[in-house]
């Protein structure tokens, strides 16, 4: 097992190298001088030259890449050209917001998605199944941007039940002092329940919006995995033995159907943890996604570069964890 994990970690090296090369290439090979693009319609040639020098754009491309890679190895993603804040520092500030949002979205997706999938499989071709599956098709295909605005208009503008956006209200925000940046955690350890309910109410709409796609995918995957397992011989055997139908589904079928589901959970969770650009932007959620969007708006190359690398690395790491978890779920899988 230890050797397997080590091997997998080593496999990360070429993957990360590929990511860094792609990110570097995207930003440097698109037409137009990054320095001109960043400074905009009023830059003088002198200013462009100063910025080119600062960004190291005057070096030959391969040298620039090597320098970039060298910094990367030292976890130095550079600093934002505009704000001067180190990229690593900005990620540290923004990631807790994304993390909280991802966890709640994933929870919603799991709590609703798996039961829906199981029910749909057990009641195959029933009305329940058809409704669940067409609903999930809708969930996958609904544009997040549109759904987010819809929820805001319904729950924040018309009904006024929930706040439209942000992580914490203005008034509560004055008294609440974050410690770790994980607001839910901070409010809990400070016993500040007024802040906690305010924070959770802010979390709900973006989390719901963000959960639709993973929820729908989970429901569909669970259904098809369950269908496959339910047709297996050992299920028939279990039924023949007189095992209660509940236990057949819950113990014999569901556990064995979990493997593909876990894979999807990993993929989806990895995506969520990298920040959701549209959802975070719509809900003014100060996480990684909104940060990357800000970087794109300002054409802040180091921010976009650092952001994309971070997202990619998180994705790869979460999926590594998923692969390792297979061993625990399915004893037939042996790692050598």
């Amino acid at each position, binding site marked *: 097992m230890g050797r397997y994990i080590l091997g997998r970690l080593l496999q990360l090296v070429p993957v990360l190298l590929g990511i860094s090369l792609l990110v570097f290439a995207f930003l440097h090979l698109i*037409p*137009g001088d990054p320095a001109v*693009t960043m400074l*905009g*319609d*009023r830059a*003088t040639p*002198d*200013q462009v030259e100063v*910025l080119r020098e*600062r960004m190291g754009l005057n070096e030959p491309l391969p040298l620039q890449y090597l320098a970039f890679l060298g910094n990367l190895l030292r976890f130095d993603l550079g*600093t934002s*050209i505009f*704000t*001067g*804040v180190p990229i690593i520092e*900005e990620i540290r*500030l923004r990631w807790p917001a994304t*993390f*909280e949002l991802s*966890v*709640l979205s994933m*929870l919603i997706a*799991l*709590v609703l998605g*798996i039961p829906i999938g*199981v029910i749909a499989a057990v009641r195959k071709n029933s009305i329940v199944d058809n409704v669940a599956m067409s609903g999930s098709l809708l969930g996958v295909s609904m544009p997040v941007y549109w759904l987010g605005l819809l929820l805001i*208009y319904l729950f*924040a*503008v018309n009904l*006024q*039940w*929930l*706040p*439209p*956006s*942000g992580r914490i209200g*203005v*008034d*509560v925000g004055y008294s609440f002092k974050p410690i770790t940046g994980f607001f*839910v955690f901070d409010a*809990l350890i400070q016993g500040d329940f007024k802040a906690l*309910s305010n924070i*959770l*109410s802010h*979390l709900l709409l973006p989390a719901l919006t963000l959960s639709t796609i993973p929820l729908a995918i989970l429901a569909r995957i669970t259904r098809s995995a369950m269908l496959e397992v339910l047709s297996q011989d050992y299920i028939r055997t279990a039924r023949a033995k007189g095992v209660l*139908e509940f236990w057949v*589904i819950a113990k014999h079928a*569901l556990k064995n159907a979990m493997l593909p589901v*876990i894979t999807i*959970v990993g993929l989806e969770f990895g995506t969520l943890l990298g920040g959701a650009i549209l959802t975070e932007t*719509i809900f*003014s959620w*100060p996480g990684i996604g909104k*940060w990357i*969007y*800000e970087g794109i*708006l*300002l054409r802040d190359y180091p921010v976009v570069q650092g952001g994309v690398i971070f997202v990619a690395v998180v994705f790869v790491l979460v999926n590594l964890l998923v692969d390792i*978890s297979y061993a625990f779920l399915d004893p037939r899988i042996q790692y050598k």
Partner: protein
Amino acid sequence: MQIIRRFRFIFLAALTLAIAVMVANCGGSPETTTSTPADEAAAPAATGALVYGAGGQPVNLNPGNITDGNSIVAQTQIYDRLVGTEPGTTELAPGLAEDWSASDDSLTWTFNLREGVKFHDGTDFNAEAVVFNVNRWWDPEFEYGYRAEGNLYEIWTDLFGGFKGDEASTITDVRAADEYTVEFELAQPFAAFPAAIASGYFGIASPTAIQEAGANYGTPSGTAVGTGPFVFEEWRSGDRITFSKYADYWDEGMPKVEQLVISFVEDPAARLAQLRAGTLDFTVDLTPDQLPEIESDPNLEALYRPSFNVGYLALNPAYEPLAKPEVRQAIAQAINKAAIVDAFWGDLGETDPHFTPPSLKEFQSEGIEDYKYDPEAAKQALAEAGYPDGFPLDLWYMPVSRPYFPNPKPIAEAFAAELSQIGIQVNLQTKDWGAYLEDRNTPPGFQSFMLGWTGDYGDPDNFLYAHFGPGATQDLGDYQDPEMFDLLNKARVASETSEREALYQELDQLLHDKALRIPIVHSQPLLAKRTSIEGWEPSPLGSEAFTTIEKS
């Protein structure tokens, strides 16, 4: 059996919930409590604090080291400038300097400072503080400029020619003549100097605070200390900046609210939704298509910021057919500006024959009548100029949206349709924004292109010299016109306002006749506020201190 059968789905649901929590815990989450938000978490009406919805977070709070509007808005709350502007206009008004004057040779500017003003950190505002701030922007060797750490102060060279030691630098010295008098020495007369130093970039910061914070000054984790109406409290990156009222503000009775929050909301649709939900009190830079929604909500009110920009169509005389002024004039005549502006901007844009925006009216020639839309006459003029069958023309449109051209492509298509009527075969072109800006200046440049400008300060010099002055005509094939340059230079150095007005009026007429950059539109940014907010007077310059705003 029957009972179990009946409840099996509830059991199943409970089981999967348990699995879900376990899986989530494997993810290492510290807060996977069952998060069912409480009912009492209703939309928090922002009581007390005034909440402004900005289109993004500031780049920094370090004066002089910014070029973007979001930074200027935030800095305007914290810092005063030497010279301010009258609310809602570009007219200069006393700021930290009570009055100012130029010497007879127009080379020395003297600013008499307000006495008894203190920075938010309790230190004294005086001439030394001003000199300290100017040196940060102007002197590359200045110890507290932190240029090695990445501060560029590029806007300084935009407005004042260059840094200390550069030949092109407008100023040659800055000194404290006494505790409350600052003097600037200029290399050549520059009549717009007070207007330029009044621009939103150049707030005066506390030298003590800068020295203590070092390169960290003005970043989210640093401080920002000025003499302005609001004291900087906290900057949560990506989220908000909070301010409190500065009790000892020199303008007595101001500001009118105790607390101010600038909330960063990049998406215009999200900004409007928040305004309607009441979590924002006022916001800016909405899109024209949002106007009906604002008007439909009884709690909201739409406002227009007076225009201070120009969107233009440039015709490059380096392209042979466009070398003749008659051809350029014919093009101006063939484009129905009024109809295009009405179609794409509605109430949010106006068209006139001037390159400078309406708020600089006193510098415009009243006698100019705009080219009358007349395709027949234009075709005739084209034939007389030797192009009876027209000619092919590359027309470049911007790949990005700007306030002066919110959707460049359909606007360019409208131009193309108009020009085809007089026989000009328009070939629409665009490329990546960076390349667009760069290549238009690379000889021979674009044959014709769309671009625009938003002014920095309330003087025509900022519009005209930047587009028609020596060195500013690269994108017009390095067009040289001694008469035009001469007028610009004279207006730049003339000390009497009446003389400058006359010169700029003459220039206005000349530019109209030359039709090099045809002004298409002066657009007004769309703003909105809740009706509970009163006293907001938007400045044409793009930002204003929120001192007079009251919230009920």
